């Protein structure tokens, strides 16, 4: 086969797929490269959150009674509601990706907007949770006080000693250790919340793109950006799948 003959189908392919990058031979190769690149990013995100989970595990093991007492102040209602909301948003995201693959831009827009809606509900719930913690002086700062934790768990405080049932610790120790729990809580859920916020911004950009494609009736739009943001969004969901039981539930009610 002459060089000319061999290259002809590729040139045709390139004409039919305008979003095919110069460095790729086929759209499949380009899509594979996108997927691998996105997974490389997600893997480093997994390790980034993993370090925080490891730190939380180590200190929970060391200060079990204090951490369990502190976790009782978290709202199971909001935790469950937010898990529900994020799982549904993962579903609507998967549907948006499906619509994008089928070049149905109107459906794609609809499901992207639903995903943004559920993500926003998550953030609103987080606002309620955080403000409640703020008013209870449970934000780890100079005004932090373990008073609410003691009150919530009906713990007895005598001569500056907090009775945890299995052992007694000084009020100073109890304050420091529960403060450590809330440091983990706010850093982990806060970082996760930032990821949700970033997700909302990227989803909004995708929604605008989907709208443009719909108005212009683009026959073959590149669906990979939607699938890649989908990967990110599902990852954010997975982080919450672990955060919820480990922070809110573990240690009994």
């Amino acid at each position, binding site marked *: 086969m002459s060089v000319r003959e061999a290259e002809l*189908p590729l040139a045709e*392919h390139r004409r*039919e*797929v305008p979003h095919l990058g110069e460095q790729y031979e*086929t*759209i*499949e190769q380009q899509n*594979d490269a996108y997927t*691998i690149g996105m*997974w*490389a990013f*997600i*893997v480093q995100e*997994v*390790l980034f959150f*993993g*370090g925080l*989970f*490891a730190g939380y*595990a*180590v200190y929970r*093991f*060391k200060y*079990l009674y204090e951490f*369990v007492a502190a976790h009782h102040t978290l709202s199971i209602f909001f935790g*469950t509601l937010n*898990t*529900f909301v994020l*799982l*549904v948003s*993962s*579903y609507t995201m*998967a*549907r948006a*990706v*499906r619509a994008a*693959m*089928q070049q149905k831009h109107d459906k794609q827009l609809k499901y992207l907007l639903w995903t943004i809606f559920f993500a926003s509900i998550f953030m609103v719930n987080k606002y309620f949770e955080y403000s409640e913690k703020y008013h209870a002086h449970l934000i780890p700062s100079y005004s932090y006080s373990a008073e609410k934790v003691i009150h919530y768990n009906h713990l007895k405080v005598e001569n500056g000693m907090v009775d945890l049932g299995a052992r007694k610790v000084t009020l*100073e*120790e109890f304050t*420091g250790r529960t403060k450590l729990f809330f440091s983990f809580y706010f850093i982990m859920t806060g970082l996760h919340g930032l990821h949700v916020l970033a997700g909302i911004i990227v989803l909004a950009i995708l929604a605008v793109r989907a709208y443009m494609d719909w108005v212009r009736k683009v*026959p*073959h739009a590149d*669906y990979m950006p939607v*699938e890649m943001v*989908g990967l990110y969004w*599902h*990852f954010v*969901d*997975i982080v919450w*799948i*672990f955060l919820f*039981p*480990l922070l*809110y*539930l*573990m*240690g*009994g*009610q």
Partner: protein
Amino acid sequence: MATPHEEHTHAQRVSFYAKTLWVLMVLLVLTVAAGFVKMPDWLGIAVALTIAVSKATIVILNFMHVRFSSKLAWLFAGAGFFWLIIMFAFAFADYASRHWEPEQGW
């Protein structure tokens, strides 16, 4: 050579995504229910983690389409969790086998 019309996508039937969501919802109910059952702390951790890992696996395979992705994508996704396990194992082994420095006031 594939044209956009024949372009291979991972799009599944709607019922595939709907069923996945239902399974995740059942697991969510299990997660919360397990949180209210009185059990030893180690068992609570084991149950919570088992359900969480199941949920994450379902999301990764079905929603993230890893089930339908190339071997290289499998390798990348798998490597991430393999490294995570190494990080956990080494960190915990270190904390479990050495004594803690006393910290004033903690």
